């Protein structure tokens, strides 16, 4: 059934983690084999709900290797729980996800200065510390819910604040000044 590859089907295909194996081939590329029937070359692992449910419903996209072809892939299926993959596969998928999703998560606001409606802040994030410039910040804030905020800075980088209430007091005071 899987051997037919992606056809225009109306059903989502959920993959059993036990059927999926992700490995690095001798040529250094990443492959994903599904039920030992299909092997995808350089598959992409894409989160369906990167913000609200990042760990579930990882789509595997790829192309069955053809002669000299490595085109953009179609979706082969969805993994409900990618962490249940066997360890080697999980490690590779983790690496692929980390490579693809670069949005930093804000952990603390170190400082904030304001110049006529433009703010320069130092953000401490899970990816390190960075000075950011915020411009028209209220137009660049998305409230996912009352406690979850995304802020986009003047350089088009987005910072995720997954839990407003988890920030320290000073950071929240700074935030209240800008949003």
């Amino acid at each position, binding site marked *: 059934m899987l051997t037919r590859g992606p056809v225009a089907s109306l059903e989502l295909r959920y993959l059993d983690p036990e059927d999926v194996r992700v490995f690095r081939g001798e040529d250094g*590329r990443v492959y994903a084999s599904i039920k030992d029937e299909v092997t995808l070359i350089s598959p992409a692992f894409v989160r369906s709900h990167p913000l609200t449910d990042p760990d579930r419903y990882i789509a595997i996209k790829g192309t069955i290797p053809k002669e000299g072809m490595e085109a953009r892939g179609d979706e082969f299926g969805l993994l409900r729980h990618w962490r249940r993959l066997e360890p080697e596969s999980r490690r590779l998928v983790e690496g692929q996800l980390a490579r693809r999703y*670069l949005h930093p998560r804000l952990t603390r606001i170190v400082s904030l200065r304001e110049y006529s409606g433009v703010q320069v802040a130092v953000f401490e994030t899970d*990816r390190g510390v*960075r000075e950011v410039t915020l*411009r028209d910040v209220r*137009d660049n804030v998305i409230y996912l819910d009352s406690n979850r905020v995304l802020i986009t800075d*003047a350089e*088009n980088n987005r910072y995720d604040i997954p839990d407003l209430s988890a920030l320290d007091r000073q950071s929240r005071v700074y935030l209240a000044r800008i949003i």
Partner: protein
Amino acid sequence: MPEQIPESIKAIMEQRHPGADLRVSARADLGDGGIFGDKWLLLAGDHVVVCQDGEVPQVATDLPLSDISSFEIDTLVGGAALRAVVNGKRIDLISFTNALADRFGRVREQLDAAVKGKPIPEREERINRCPTCGMVLGEYTRVCPRCLRRGAVLRRLLAYARPYRGRVILIMVLLVCGTAVGLAPPLLTKYLVDDVLIPRRNIQLLFILVAGLAGTSILSTGMEIWRGRLAAWLGGRISFDLRAELYERLQWLSLRYYDKHPTGALISRLTQDSGGVQDLLAFALPMVVSSVIQIIGVAIVLFAMNWKLAILALIPVPFLFLLTHSLWLKLRKAWHAYWYRWGRFHTLVNDALNRVKVTKAFSQQPSEIGRYAIRNDDLRFAGVRAEQTSATMFPFMWLVVGSGSLLVWLFGGVLAIRAQITAGDVVAFLAYVGMIQFPLHFLSQVAQWLSRALTAAERVFEVLDTESDSEKIKGSISTERLRGEVEFQHVNFGYERHQQVLKDVSFRVEPGHMLGLVGKSGAGKTTVINLLGRFYDTDEGDVLVDGVNVKDLALWDYRKHLGVVLQEPFLFGGTIAENIAYGKPDATPEEIMAAAKVANAHDFVVNKPDGYDEQVGERGGRLSAGERQRICIARAILRNPAILVLDEATASVDLETEQQIQEAIARLIEGRTTFAIAHRLSTLRNAHQLVVLEDGKIVESGTHEELEAQKGVYAGLLEMHQKTSMVGALHAD
């Protein structure tokens, strides 16, 4: 100009590739594992080297250029990666955040040139940081609020007052005279107390003094009215001039500018920012001047009357100044939070009422009401807080302000008892101290106010200073007539530098021929049109019209020869005749009707109650899609262009209407070079040439028959199309 390479990196490169020329260098902002940090990509001689910066720089990758066939940008979420293709395998070289996407788009071009053995192009980087302080600037703006020279902005703003300098001088004179006259009443009161009330005599003097009081107040009121009216006129006039200039500039700005600036933001520059400038000119600036004059005047009079008491009376002034300033900051914060919530509330209501039909259809009223309730409550909370803060703050502020007069009572009283001053002096002092409260109050917040207004002014100036299409027009080749020969030569283009939309596109269209552009959505069809119309300029390669590069053509002139019928027929509010004549405002009624006839529009137009004078409604909402389309065709016919663009002109209309439109189009394209985009491939059957685009590249080209025989992409699309039209036919039955 690329950034300076750190010495440590240079040293390690020298060690690794001695004597190699560093031909390309670029800093990325993500290090290993996606952590913020500097990484450098260098092309040293014929090696691509990636170096992690740090105390001891580490070489991460070192590839000989000869192994690499090409470079590509892999767009990720929140950033992107530059990859090299080696033997069909993709190797990540370096990754970066969105901040540097533009830079690495250009680096890719440089590296690709190196791979092909071409000369490496200079890398011009978009300046997005203030050259003085390094702060990130807004897109398309060079204004740095940290380095903004307020004086310069103010001077530029005042330059707008120059044509009206007579009135400006009059306003200043009135200000000074008004203030001087305003200083008289307390002095008169002093004589009233000392020479009339206390001695209980001099009824004649009483009359004179009261007459004096009446006179000064009438005089100062008169001057105040005159000055206020003049200032209002002047402020209105200057912001009118500014708005007119701004709007003109907006009309001429390039589409790239509009891509980057949401219309809402531009509207706010036109309305709010220029309104802010008006407030500044009509109200704030005259107030600043008058406040300063008043305070200086009062101080002079006080010191002349009694310098000791003057010092005592003025001691609390700086403290009051600071206190009111800090109270105001608090207050303003509360109100800003409230206004912000108003904005969000407004958006919600606007959205919700616009989709009320959908809401009803899906029975989502309760959830809409719930959503509204949350915002409404949020708004109430912020509103109550702002109002309560105000309710507390203002009386408190006046209490503090009033304390200044207590000091005068106390020390003035002591001096009066000791007969060093008169009772009239105390009364006059009290009046003077009261007189400067408001100016002080005003000045304590004017700094913030001024700075906002000046930033608003600067935002307006910024648009005025943006390079527009019209500047490109100057000194270009003018085109009286076009034959309509079009050629694309190795065109590369991306709306964003790092995302190429067209890749090495080349084709040629003979004058009067029809070219059909085929491909899935997103393949680059509309982009070809955008480049043809020179709404954008190519990144690499040229677009030639009649053998002349479009970049050298006078744009304004050139576009006169272009006619466009778009997928979404855009009509503006007005009559049908006005809409047809949009591209040729001086068209006669007969020309308009002739064009409408050819476009199969005349008959239905005349059937309208108001005929050609029928209002089409906002965006043509009162006409059907097919009617709108035919009016747009008539518009193009009237303009009589040499080159015609048809973008999906027959989408979303019924069969009979489609036939009428097809007829109209067939008449329209006769003798003109035509670029047609259509999903319905049947419409392109008659094209002299078809170009099939996939992912921005031309994959096939030829006539309908040739491509059908090729059994390639086009044949596949054709087959799919036939199937879906069969399904459509079945449904139609």
